[in-house]
């Protein structure tokens, strides 16, 4: 199904839009966009994934009012 759709969609894209590069090097089934950084790449974590995950878990507990009231 998908293989049928893609050429059609591509054709549409190429004919209808002048704002984007006309030649897309396309590799089917793989993400074609820009690479994203990871949320913990920036300060204050600077790549320390474990610390970021701990911080996120701690933050998540704010949603649990049972932590503050029983």
């Amino acid at each position: 199904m998908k293989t049928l759709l893609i050429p059609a969609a591509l054709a549409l894209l190429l004919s209808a839009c002048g704002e984007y590069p006309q030649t897309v090097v396309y590799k089917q089934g793989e993400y074609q966009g820009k690479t994203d950084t990871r949320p913990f790449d920036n300060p204050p974590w600077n790549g320390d994934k474990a610390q970021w995950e701990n911080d996120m878990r701690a933050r998540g507990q704010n949603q649990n009012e049972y932590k503050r009231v029983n």
Partner: protein
Amino acid sequence: MARMKFLCDSERCIECNGCVTACKNEHEVPWGINRRRVVTLGDGQPGEKSISVACMHCTDAPCMAVCPVDCFYRTDEGVVLHDKDMCIGCGYCFYACPFGAPQYPQNGAFGQRGKMDKCTFCAGGPEADNSQEEFEKYGRNRLAEGKLPLCAEMCSTKALLAGDADVVADVFRQRALTRGKGGELWGWATAYGPGEMKQDREREQKREQAGKPQEKKEGK
């Protein structure tokens, strides 16, 4: 590894639209685009239930599977994002999505679609984190600030939960055990797979058998 999930507790949701507004506020989403919405079943009748719905960041996301230009990606944290520069606004993801999450700005006189917009789990997009460009295309990147999605953090009754799956499950389990019923976990199996829910249930049962860690507090 952290796996980010949403869960809406229909026993708690009061359809206040706080989540919808928090999203508008945080990302300055324009009029007519609803990354999140509240759906009510049986409105005005006994048994009325509401649930807050947005992109569920599915484990096996149908939007990713059908996208003709492959503009979707899933982060290590399980957040499904897309590159708007690639998106052609074709709308296939909308047909594929079981939650109706993708949104399209109406464009020009013939109702063409603009580039797809959806909930980012407050994780921005592929542009540099919290850059002006990222904000303009995707909204604020709270995960990169060490914060969780604002919709859940601001939920009036803490019905909508977001974050690390283990934490979300713990929070929900504690209240479900306290009140003695779970409420329908709407969308969970569709988004994250029945397997995961089963695992959670088994883990819950094991914990209960092990030592009743969440027994009723004194004075109740």
